[in-house]
């Protein structure tokens, strides 16, 4: 057992971090902090258990702590804002930038769940353990995130505007 095992997971940690925070350098900082913690805590890892899930859990914890420190509440608050559909026309092939922009518009909680399921292809059970939330919460976040993305990408108005008479 040694660091080779962890090193194998670095590309996937980078992928998840990039998708989670967007910016390349911020993402690699997150990976670096995660690795540092992982090396330090390596003796806590139970041999034979899922190392990847363990690393994602560490990354989640580092991310949440940083988010708390850096006061990312602004981002949280964005969830409350009325969503604006990003697409002008339907039926056209979706642009990847649109997908990215819509992903950014999700709350971090929803984004984590969507990415762990869609990109990292963890099972719901693994997501539940990684994020340390009940599986019901995983499902409700996933469901809401997907629906929100669908509506934004599908040019539907999510928040009904008040009709001003």
């Amino acid at each position, binding site marked *: 057992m040694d660091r080779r095992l962890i090193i194998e997971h670095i590309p996937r940690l980078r992928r998840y971090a990039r998708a989670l925070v967007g910016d390349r350098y911020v993402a690699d900082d997150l990976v670096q902090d995660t690795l540092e913690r992982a090396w330090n805590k390596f003796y806590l890892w139970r041999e034979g258990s899922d190392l990847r899930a363990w690393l994602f859990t560490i990354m989640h914890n580092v991310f949440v702590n940083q988010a708390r420190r850096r006061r990312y509440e602004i981002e949280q608050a964005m969830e409350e804002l009325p969503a604006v559909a990003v697409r002008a026309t339907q039926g056209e092939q979706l642009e990847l930038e649109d997908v990215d922009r819509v992903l950014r518009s999700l709350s971090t909680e929803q984004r984590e769940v969507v990415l762990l399921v869609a990109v990292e292809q963890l099972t719901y059970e693994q997501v539940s353990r990684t994020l340390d939330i009940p599986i019901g919460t995983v*499902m409700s976040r996933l469901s809401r995130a997907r629906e929100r993305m669908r509506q934004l990408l599908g040019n539907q108005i999510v928040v009904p505007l008040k009709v001003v008479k």
Partner: protein
Amino acid sequence: MKPVTEIDLHTYVDGGLSEAAKAEVDAWLRAHPEDAERMRAYAEQNALLRSLYNAVLEEPVPAALLAGHPRAWRRYAAAAVIFALGIGSGWLIRGEFVVPQMVPVSLARQAATAHVVYAPEVRHPVEVTANEEAHLVGWLSKRLGTTLKAPKLGPLGYELVGGRLLSGPQGPVAHFMYQDGRGQRLTLYVSRQRGEPRDTAFRFSQEDRVSVFYWVDGNFGYALSGEIKREQLLQVAEVVYKQLNP
């Protein structure tokens, strides 16, 4: 038709259903075009997100991520102090102070390889036996260009069998062998390290059946190998370390 749940639908999109359950959802979706459209959109989201971020997997990993972080050195200083105080094995288990510093993994592998080659040897486990310990240590010291010591592990039940000179990737290697009353053997592998002198904390590696604790101290890498449990080997490794760094 059996109603399917929202969870079934998501699991369907994420490929987590059994064949039977999948057939049920298929049937449901044929009868419920709105759900079918929704699931198609979710599946498309999955595909788009993957194609958006899979490229990261192909990027070369920045060296800084492989090498550990400079900030780690501050922690290392604390680790060195604690280690010097001989607080014991608890620090390692708690793990807060273990150094995230690159150690050539090959040190552990080389040592384990030497262990499995020589430890089972019945007639010629060593070149020079413990009867000629002074000669052995003097000879190996000369070849490695440093003053070596063969740690005394008698209190732990291990007596020196002897040693030999090996050839390693960085030149000569000193190889000491110990044995307990039941014939269990441990080997200590000492090799010069390439590059700047540096120090690391203990690292553990399991190389097949062989457990290895290894560390770098200045210009030399040390690896203690044995087919015993990690905790037992750690006890010995700590004694070895303390004797080499009085």
